[in-house]
């Protein structure tokens, strides 16, 4: 799954998710990818979030909605990401999750559980994308 977030120089933000889902799923199954607040979520007045992982579990807790609303309440991007993942593993300790969070000033962070997660970013003046490795909570 790819979830991707953008922040323009004018301050507008957008998010997208695209995926072919889980292998060997039951025909008709849909995971978290296309669900606003789960696969991704964005509100330019607060920030944006993208997610990947065990979609059948993650879509029950809307981690990206949670993370963006946490930004609105004043948490940092790292605190918001950690909080969203901790809420999932509190109910599903074995869940594999990875979420990226960016506030509307461009501060970004990520949190994960169940695996080593990576994310990529590229901002003004950068020649290439940089990769960040995130250890599981």
């Amino acid at each position, binding site marked *: 799954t*790819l979830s991707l977030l953008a922040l323009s120089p004018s301050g507008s933000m957008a998010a*997208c998710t695209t995926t*072919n*889902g889980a292998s060997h799923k039951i*025909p008709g199954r849909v995971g978290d990818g296309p669900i606003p607040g789960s696969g991704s979520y964005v509100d*330019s007045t607060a920030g944006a979030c993208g997610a990947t992982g065990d979609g059948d579990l993650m879509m029950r807790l809307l981690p990206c909605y949670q993370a963006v609303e946490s930004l609105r309440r004043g948490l940092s991007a790292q605190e918001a990401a950690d909080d969203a993942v901790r809420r999932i593993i509190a109910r599903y300790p074995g869940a594999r999750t990875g979420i990226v969070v960016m506030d509307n000033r461009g501060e970004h962070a990520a949190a994960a559980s169940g*695996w080593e997660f990576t*994310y990529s970013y590229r901002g003004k003046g950068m020649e290439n994308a940089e990769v960040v490795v995130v250890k599981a909570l």
Partner: protein
Amino acid sequence: SPPLIINTWSGPFTAATNAAYLTLSNSSSTSLDAVQAGCQACQTNQCDNTVGFGGSPDESCETTLDALIMDGQTLNAGAVANLRRVKDAVGVARHVLDYTQHTLLAGDQATQFALQNGFEEESLSTENSLRACHEWRSNNCQPNYRSNVLPNPLSSCGPYSPSSTSLTQNNIPNPSSSDHSHD
């Protein structure tokens, strides 16, 4: 500092980072255009086989696609779920956003919407996805997402029917599932 793009994963997924960044660096493009370009890059490149056509076949060996695009200024969103036989899932999602008042279209009707909007109908299967599905069947359909059915889904393929014994809770993902079997 902006223009700024951030996305899940690395390796082949940085093609999406760069495509979105270059789009956003063009002053005539919006952040919505940028995320669409990034997602389309991974769909075309079949990033990690977890994005786009030719990956994650279902029990019937079919690949279906899900996508979401969201505008942070308006909170307008467009999405498609279980999209069949159309490759550009995020492109169709953008059409849901731009040309409807709905948020999410699903299944064959999402395909019909795509075709009405000029998208091409084509198979999403590849030799690799069909091989993965056939290998799964040869391996007694393991890993398997069914539960509380007969025959035992941990050792047998279907067809399945509900078990008459008491239901068991199964909130933990199948531990034998591979790293690629996720959203």
